[in-house]
């Protein structure tokens, strides 16, 4: 029988980049194929061609043995190809069933048949083990469940091939494990899955086969049974990668950030931070461990001036920063790596150079009497692109054209470049490849050693435990425990994160 998907000698270039160079890929029904590769290797480009978002420059794509022209996502969907977008395309005020059926509604007397839709969705979620209540509104669901709705949408349109481009980047570890389970379930039902991730653990846990890309070329193929994390990392990067962070013991000095009993509301106007107190000293990394949604986002936004503080105080270098604007906070020496780089951290239609001064454009070096200084901006951009190995044909390229991980590197580069006194980093390595994670971690440690105070917020418990000198556990808007890195073992922190106590 012909394979479900066969990609033959496909190439694709963008101005100045050969993103895919003669790639061939086969996916059989009932198989999970992991695509692995460094940032900018060409993974997203490849799957976007399979989903009809870009036409290939050359090469052929076969589905069930038939050569196909995928001129649009609609053409791909009609042929049974589905892709789940990371930025969800859901209507918040619609129910799960309404969202799933939207655009492919089954009609009764020419009207939308809500009962039928709910039954269909219930049947689908039953069949694939995607537990979700069809009648609930999207806005009331956590991120992981919204993603399930996205997947249901694709299945509702009879997808036989499911493409997931870094679906786990925004999931909690618990949600990730559930998704991996669901993916195995698809395979059992005969669906083919293409799964892109940077987390090697996930690859080993779920994939039947692993295809590795580097610099647009196919550099190898392997099976989880024949390799381990170190082996995969080496295949990807072409060298051995140190997966553990190496650092000296911290030498904390004066207090840089002091938070006293702040109360902050969340997006739903409920209490997000409940009299939270925290202190970070120069020369130390404090990691916030917690299950997502326990106030991490509100904490970061409160410190950086993006969220109103209802009560309590924030001091930066002993200066009251409680009601400061983002601009004032920045001027106090605070760098902020935002959690959502696409939304907050970048302007997609701006060049890389302009993005690298996005929050520094008023500095004397880059602006004289209100006139932008183009040459110094370019000089900085060239330096940072080189230093942080941002993969791009030029500093004039739009940030929107960068691969996901390279966008992240751009933000990190900008925020570390100016020697901040306090670095507030939310999910600093989200979507970043293993080699670059190593690099970014080293940069953060180096900032610490140069005397910066670092507040690290990460959904990756391993990242927090590996990088932090002190671990603060957040639960229900409060810091419920602070542990020395040495005393913070996985189990203990895990229990605290769930709201339990240590004993």
């Amino acid at each position, binding site marked *: 029988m012909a394979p479900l998907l066969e990609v033959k000698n496909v190439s694709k270039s963008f101005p100045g980049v050969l993103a895919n160079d003669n790639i061939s890929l086969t996916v059989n029904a009932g198989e999970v194929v992991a695509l692995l590769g460094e940032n900018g290797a060409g993974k997203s480009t490849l799957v*976007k061609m399979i989903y009809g978002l870009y036409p290939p420059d050359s090469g052929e794509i076969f589905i069930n043995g038939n050569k196909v022209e995928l001129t649009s996502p609609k053409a791909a969907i009609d042929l049974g190809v589905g892709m789940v977008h*990371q930025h969800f395309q859901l209507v918040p005020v619609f129910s799960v069933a309404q969202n799933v059926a939207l655009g492919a509604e089954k009609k009764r007397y020419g009207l939308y048949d809500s009962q039928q839709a709910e039954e269909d969705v219930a049947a689908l979620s039953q069949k694939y083990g995607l537990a979700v209540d069809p009648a609930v509104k999207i806005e009331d669901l956590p991120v992981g469940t919204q993603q399930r709705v996205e997947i249901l949408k694709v299945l509702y349109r009879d997808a036989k091939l499911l493409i997931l481009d870094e679906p786990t980047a925004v999931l909690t570890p618990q949600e990730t494990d559930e998704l991996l389970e669901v993916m195995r379930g698809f395979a059992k039902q005969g669906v083919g899955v293409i799964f892109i991730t940077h987390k090697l653990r996930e690859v080993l846990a779920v994939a039947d086969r692993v295809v590795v890309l580097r610099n647009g070329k196919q550099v190898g193929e392997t099976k989880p049974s024949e390799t381990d994390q170190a082996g995969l990392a080496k295949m990807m990067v072409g060298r051995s990668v140190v997966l553990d962070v190496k650092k000296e013991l911290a030498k904390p000095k004066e207090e840089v950030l002091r938070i006293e009993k702040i109360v902050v509301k969340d997006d739903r106007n409920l209490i997000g931070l409940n009299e939270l107190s925290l202190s970070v000293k120069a020369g130390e990394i404090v990691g916030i461990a917690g299950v997502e949604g326990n106030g991490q986002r509100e904490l970061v936004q409160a410190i950086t001036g993006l969220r109103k503080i209802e009560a309590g105080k924030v001091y930066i270098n002993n200066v009251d920063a409680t009601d400061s604007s983002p*601009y004032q906070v920045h001027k106090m020496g605070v760098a902020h790596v935002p959690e959502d780089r696409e939304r*907050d*951290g970048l*302007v*997609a239609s701006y060049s890389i150079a302009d993005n690298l001064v996005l*929050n520094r454009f008023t500095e004397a070096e880059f602006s004289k009497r*209100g006139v932008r200084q183009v040459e110094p901006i370019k000089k900085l951009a060239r330096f940072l692109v080189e230093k942080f190995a941002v993969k791009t044909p030029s500093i004039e390229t739009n940030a929107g054209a960068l*691969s996901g991980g390279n966008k992240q590197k751009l933000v990190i580069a900008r925020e570390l470049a100016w020697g901040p006194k306090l670095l507030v980093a939310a999910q600093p390595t989200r979507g970043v490849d293993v080699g670059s994670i190593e690099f970014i971690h080293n940069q953060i440690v180096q900032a610490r050693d140069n005397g910066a105070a670092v507040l690290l917020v990460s959904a990756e418990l391993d990242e927090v435990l590996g990088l932090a000198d002190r671990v603060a556990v957040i639960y229900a808007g409060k810091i419920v425990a602070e542990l020395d890195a040495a005393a913070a073992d996985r189990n203990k922190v895990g229990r605290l994160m769930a709201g339990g106590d240590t004993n």
Partner: protein
Amino acid sequence: MIQGEEAKKLHPTLSYLVQKQSLVVPLIAVLVAFLIGSVLIALQGVNPVGAYQTIFNAALGSERGLLRTLEKTTPLILAGLAVAVALRVGLFNIGAQGQLIMGAFFATWAGFTFTNLPALLHVFVGLLAGVIAGGLWAAIAGVLKAYRGVHEVISTIMLNSIAIALLDYLVNHPFKEPGQALPRTVPIFETAQLPKLGFVPVGFLLALLVAMFISWVINRTTAGFQFNTVGANKFAAAYAGIKIKYIVVASMLLSGGLAGLGGAVESLGITYRFEPAFNKGLGFDGITIALLARANPLATIPAAFLVGVLRSGAPSLQFDYGIEPEIVDLLLAITLLLVAAPILGKLIFRKYAKKSETISSGWGS
């Protein structure tokens, strides 16, 4: 913190209009509009080629025609700039017309009120009065948007009506020319009149300079950077420490000031008085011009010139063929439809669009 109305991203159509700087879409839009126009002209039993020739001849063929065309183009450049500047920030200033007539009136007012001012200074004061009047009028919409979340399209439309009513009252009552049947003001003093350089109206040169200046502000200054950033991504603008509310108000102030200047130049350079029948439709043509120019300040010059040529040449259709000059409104309306609807661009750039648009923007992409 950003919330509610403010948090909404720039309307996709607007961001599309601002981003695609390509020349092809506007050119084809104009071409298609002319083609459709020819059909309509032919339906009236007139040879379209001849009709178009008449327009261009009347507008460009003589020194008098050219002067009239430049005079028509001048306020159009400024009105186009007004709309373009707001578009940069993601605001759709439908109210350029109201701001323009406010500017026209107050420039006139300064022109007939101040006595004994030296010529140059009087002109300057007149222009300034127009800029301030238009700017403040638009700033009302800016403040409503920034602090009350009122959509600028709604508020500027309403401000248009209010401006018309207000000025109607002013020229019918307190500022009515004594002994005149027509509702109009007295003429401005000669010291307030904008002169000509050779046969080129000084107002036209001023409009060119202003367009270059605005282009420089938008592309080269930190103020322009803030305008563009707010228009391109409000969240990133807030993150970058840009005061969004302030920028919204400032950009409307600038936008309205430009429209007001357009009205002032018209009053001080052409009409020499204010009459509600003057300045009709200039602000609305400004919308067409800004969209045709894809919100690029320098491109408003050729776009305004094109509209100026049509407006200046159209009346001759009446003499030569008996065609109503409103055919030009039709041409412009079709052009506007074609540039404003992204469909045309999508059709032309079908392949290209797919290559460049980031449709999915996941962590992986």
